[in-house]
């Protein structure tokens, strides 16, 4: 390679790669700016038809035009580097400019705030997939261990990106708000669509398990929680003794679920409107005085209570949710009703849908009677998982053999 080589003079290398990438960038930006529609792949079956057409073009390129210089160059390292760099630039922009969903997007220069649904992103992905695809064709044969690992890495990524791209048009997500003792069969998408499910959901119970509240000393003048000592925010348990500022606080009794009795004491209770309560013994180490009293987290039935000593309150923080879950009965025609529990990280599968626990009435906290579920359907999921598994296998080889990969060969240069 000499320095006098002008652009488009063979052999092609970085100059041509970056020129092609810059061309795609420019076309993408112009399409973004001058088309009113966002780019959106059509839904089933049109996405699979387009996908198959693209795949045929790729095969045609390989097996009919495989000997043309351009197609050969597309499977070279400079082409790969230009495709990665271009994709990196677009994703970097997505990382720097806050992204919005298209149905709620505000106008933005070159649509840079809705990039995942833009022409630019689509073109970059096609360029990356094309370079990746042609490279796999070149290396899939002969079957040596190294080529298999190479194919697993690149093929896994190709399948993952290709099917995830097609899936983006077909993934359906619907929120289902449901109150206790209510039966629903409709879901609502954030885009404003409504769907009727082939099943009905009856919410038997929504419940939140809480962590114990934390013990806090609050400065009465500023209302700030004292943070001077790292150990000040301890989860309350019976027998706990902590030193915060000049107080030694001992938890004599702790009821995770209690009701107020009279104005001054608390008793354990299973009532659904109960709250947390603790009986404390506080020693003021400056003067040796001992105070005792109840503190509580409050509930819809009683206000939170605290102990005031001079300029300080000793109180409970608002308890954090540990687990929230819905007990539901699923009713389907011709089938016996079945009871399931849905919790965060524990979705259930019903008739091709996955049901997730996503929310509740946060103003009511653990007293919420409302549960928000989400139904998700993604027919492409198995293919995406195949891509993920292949990529994991290929990566295991890279991890195992990584330090022996020989970078001295320059066989990728096209003559």
């Amino acid at each position, binding site marked *: 390679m000499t320095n006098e080589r002008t652009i488009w003079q063979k052999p092609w290398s970085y100059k041509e790669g970056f020129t092609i990438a810059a061309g795609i960038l420019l076309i993408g930006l112009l399409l973004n700016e001058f088309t009113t529609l966002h780019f959106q792949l059509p839904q089933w079956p049109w996405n699979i038809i387009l996908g198959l057409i693209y795949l045929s073009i790729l095969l045609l390129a390989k097996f009919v035009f495989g000997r043309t210089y351009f197609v050969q160059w597309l499977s070279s390292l400079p082409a790969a580097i230009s495709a990665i760099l271009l994709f*990196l630039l677009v994703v970097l922009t997505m990382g720097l400019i806050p992204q919005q969903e298209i149905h709620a997007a505000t106008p933005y220069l070159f649509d840079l705030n809705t990039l995942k649904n833009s022409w630019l992103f689509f073109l970059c992905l096609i360029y990356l997939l094309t370079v990746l695809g042609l490279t796999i064709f070149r290396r899939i044969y002969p079957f040596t261990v190294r080529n298999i690992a190479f194919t697993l890495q690149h093929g896994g990524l190709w399948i993952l990106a290709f099917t995830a791209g097609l899936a983006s048009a077909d993934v359906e997500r619907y929120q289902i708000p449901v109150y206790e003792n209510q039966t629903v069969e409709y879901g609502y998408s954030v885009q404003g669509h409504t769907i009727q499910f082939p099943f009905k959901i009856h919410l038997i119970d929504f419940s939140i398990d809480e962590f114990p509240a934390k013990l806090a000393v609050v400065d009465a003048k500023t209302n700030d929680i004292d943070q001077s000592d*790292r*150990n000040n925010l301890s989860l309350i348990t019976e027998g706990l003794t902590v030193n915060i500022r000049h107080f030694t606080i001992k938890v004599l009794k702790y009821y995770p679920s209690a009701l107020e009795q009279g104005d001054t004491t608390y008793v354990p209770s299973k009532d659904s409107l109960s709250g947390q309560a603790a009986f404390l013994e506080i020693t003021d180490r400056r003067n040796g005085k001992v105070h005792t009293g109840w503190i509580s987290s409050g509930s819809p039935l009683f206000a939170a209570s605290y102990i005031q000593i001079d300029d300080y309150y000793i109180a409970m923080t608002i308890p954090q949710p540990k687990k929230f879950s819905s007990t539901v009965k699923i009713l389907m025609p011709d089938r016996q009703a079945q009871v399931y529990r849905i919790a*965060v990280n524990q979705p259930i599968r019903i008739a091709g849908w996955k049901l997730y626990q996503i929310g509740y009435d946060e103003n009511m906290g653990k007293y919420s009677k409302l549960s928000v579920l989400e139904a998700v359907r993604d027919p492409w999921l198995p293919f995406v998982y195949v891509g993920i598994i292949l990529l994991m296998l290929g990566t295991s080889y890279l991890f195992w053999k990584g330090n022996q990969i020989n*970078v001295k060969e320059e066989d*990728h240069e096209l003559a």
Partner: protein
Amino acid sequence: MSWHEYTYIAIFCIIAFVTGSALIFMPKKQKWGDILILLGIVAIAFFIVSFWVFLTRPPLRTLGETRLWYTFFISLAGFITYKRWKQRWIAAYSNAFAILFILLNLLNPESHDKTLMPALQSPFFPPHVIVYLLGYSISGASSLVAIRGLVLHLRKADEEKLKNLLPLADTLVYTGFSFLTFGLLLGALWAKEAWGHYWTWDPKETWALITWLAYLLYIHVRQHKTQNYKLAYQILAVSFILLLVAWFGVNYLPAAQSSVHVYSRQ
């Protein structure tokens, strides 16, 4: 053990890492240097384990907690690389970074918090985060090699010395990149179970992908321009900045206002 006892462990580690790193440069005292560095690593490992027991959950949630792991992994990765490649400076550099993370923890005390929000209660949680911490530590170490390379370049060190560093950088990148890939994919599988979809362009996901692409670019450039070590070092140095943003910076970016990954802000 809790954050309360951390101060003592931290001071011990700092002394061990500083004197250990100095001693390994003295031929006759190298063995004592090795022992001191190892003691520091063991001390931090001991703290992590007992802190885990104390919290009754893995200490992987807050930035302060992840800094513990970073201290551990970067000093361990540095020590192994130093032994394997006979490069003393990498042990010194990694220990300096480990000390930086210890100091950050000492200067920014966090109140400990035993609670773990429901979304994090999953069998995917420990592997996802540990694999990522390893990925970050090892990729970070590769960037230390790059910085060393660029410093040597500025000092006009001889070409041979510069090129000899590259295989070390490559090894670290391949290993680190493998972990980053696993972390990303495990995260996708977990996201499907927890949030209903494997990829939602959440800012943390986007930045994880950016970092991944940057190291992917390095690997491909290395395959092609095998002799251009300066370019390789520059890409690694930039990758390191992206990695730092992905890890620490995302919480502060305007794009992160709605991230599901911001747990420490309460």
